[in-house]
């Protein structure tokens, strides 16, 4: 069942979620039961709260329960408590205290509908006395008065996990997609972008959706990616990413200065990529580097290999373990030294201390005048 769900777009609006609730009820409710959903409930409930819909369930024995329906596009375990505080007083929760009557007439419980409810969320909702349904087919309707109980299992894992809207460019997937968008000149279809970024289509799609919504990427509907505002995208990336905060990094002292380190990088076995001022100075007019920034896979191994002394303050070398391996990709060599791709160098400088941001500007100016030198058309060989 879930195999087919993944191919469908995730229901996210209230209307779509209510439609999926109706579909599941029609499909799953045992014979003899009848259900109906009133999408425009009239004001039957007290106070400010109006349910999103009203569900009436009738058992074969004619016992009838009315449930207020609360639609949530997504619901996490922590939200279950908040929901309980918000709506818990509307109906009688188990165990029924003697002598108490339901707070709201005509409502015997609340059913929460969401796109997908994890097992933990479901069990919390159950403990808090909610009924629930999700678009993958998990359904539980339980009321004490009248006593009704239906429980049906849907998916255990969220088939639309990737569709949770992305809000930041912090993670490794964002780094991969942003780098691909910067390194490769559109147009290309999303599928090719995902390939070039070496990511599942869904992951690439989330990042692209965010960037389309923020107008850094041009795309019409599901068509190809038509354009990228690469300078704007660099700036946008730098808001969520930072060389020293997004990555693991450690400072060292090279007493003969940053440049002296370069000559010794050839001694390394593993991959490395020089970023920051040392890389920028190969292209743009910048002052001699005060800090050597080098991506490596293992900071401690490289530091001991190069005999670098740790210098938590006053260091002039920073070794960086990148959050995404893409830092080692699409590098360029000059005089036997490997440098990080220029968009990577630019964002690293933008988010570096000291002269970094000014040097980033100088580099970006160079990149603007020499776009062909660092950007290539999208292709499978990547």
């Amino acid at each position, binding site marked *: 069942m879930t195999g087919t769900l993944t191919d469908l777009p995730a229901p996210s609006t209230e209307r779509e979620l209510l439609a999926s609730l109706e579909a599941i009820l029609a499909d799953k409710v045992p014979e003899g039961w009848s259900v109906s959903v009133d999408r425009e409930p009239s004001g039957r409930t007290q106070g400010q709260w109006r349910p999103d819909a009203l569900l009436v369930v009738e058992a074969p024995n004619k016992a009838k329960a009315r449930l207020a329906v609360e639609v949530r596009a997504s619901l996490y375990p922590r939200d279950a408590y908040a929901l309980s505080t918000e709506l818990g007083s509307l109906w009688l929760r188990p165990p029924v205290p003697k002598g108490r009557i339901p707070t709201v007439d005509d409502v015997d419980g609340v059913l929460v509908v969401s796109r997908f409810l994890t097992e933990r969320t479901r069990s919390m909702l159950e403990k808090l006395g909610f009924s629930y349904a999700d678009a993958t087919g998990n359904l539980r309707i339980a009321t004490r008065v009248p006593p009704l109980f239906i429980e049906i299992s849907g998916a255990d894992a969220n088939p639309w996990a990737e569709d949770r809207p992305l809000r930041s460019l912090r993670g490794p997937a964002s780094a991969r997609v942003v780098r691909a968008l910067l390194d490769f000149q559109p147009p290309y279809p999303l599928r090719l972008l995902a390939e070039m970024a070496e990511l599942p289509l869904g992951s690439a799609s989330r990042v692209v959706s965010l960037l389309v919504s923020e107008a850094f990427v041009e795309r019409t509907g599901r068509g190809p990616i038509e354009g990228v505002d690469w300078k704007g995208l660099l700036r946008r990336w730098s808001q969520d990413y930072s060389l020293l905060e997004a990555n693991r990094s450690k400072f060292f*002292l*090279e*007493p*003969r*200065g940053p*440049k*002296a380190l370069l000559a010794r990088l050839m001694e390394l076995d593993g991959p490395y990529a020089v970023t920051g001022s040392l890389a920028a100075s190969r292209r743009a007019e910048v*002052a*001699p*580097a*005060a800090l050597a920034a080098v991506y490596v896979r293992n900071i401690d191994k490289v530091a001991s290999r190069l005999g670098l*002394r740790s*210098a938590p*303050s*006053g*260091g*002039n070398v920073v070794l960086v373990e990148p959050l995404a391996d893409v830092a080692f990709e699409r590098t360029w060599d000059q005089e036997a030294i490997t440098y990080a791709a220029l968009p990577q160098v630019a964002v690293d400088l933008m988010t570096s201390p000291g002269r970094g941001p000014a040097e980033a500007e100088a580099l970006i100016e160079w990149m603007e005048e020499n776009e062909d030198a660092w950007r290539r058309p999208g292709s499978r060989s990547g």
Partner: protein
Amino acid sequence: MPGDVPDPVLVEARRALLDALEALSGHLDHIVLVGAQAVYLHTDDVTLGVALFTKDADVALIPPLGREPNIETAMRDAGFRPGSQPGIWLDEDGQVDLLVPEGLAPAGGRRAARLEGHGKGVARKVRGLEGAAVDNEFQLLGALEPSDSRTVRMRVASPAALLVAKLHKLGERQEEPRADRLSDKDAFDVYRLLQLPRNVLTRGMRRLLADERSAEVARASVAFLGRLFGTDGALGSVMAGRYVEGVADPETVRLAVATLAQDLLLSLE
């Protein structure tokens, strides 16, 4: 730095040096370039992002010198006039200091070197330059302005000899109670020299320690090195850091110069 347009002051300093060398060409085999110009010749590719700067040319005269040409006459003929102190020669835009290593100078005189056959104030005695007589090598020097095509093949003091000289300058100034900002540049020059490959400095220092002409000042300079640069909080380290304030991170320079000093001291043990 290579490719950069040199500072006009540096251009003038080199021009004055070439003028003086032309005037003193008869003594060329007894002349060794010392001071900042020599330091920069060795450390040109040690890129630090800190501008090279010197307004004068320091030249060591290694006795015994011949009587001809007469230094005073030659310098005056070349357009230099004596400055306020012995050994200082000025022309319109430049200054040349003629210096004699104290340990090698003929007896007599307090600050002025008594060079036989030459005027009393033509050169000044300086302690710490003795290494320049022991460890130097010929280099070809040219003018720094394109219109000047002169080149001179002359002796240039080795990095170790220059280190000894700079450490003496700093060590002695520190004993006079005057560790002023002018000396910060000398402390930074020590850092420039210490960045050279360690085996170059170690070999040079061993040579100076072993030669009787320079052994005493070399030993003293090792002590100065430990005292002034042995830790990042030592006076020389702090001065070197202060020199880059606003241009680079003083703390980096303090840590780096102290690290290099420790390395060199260790390799000399």
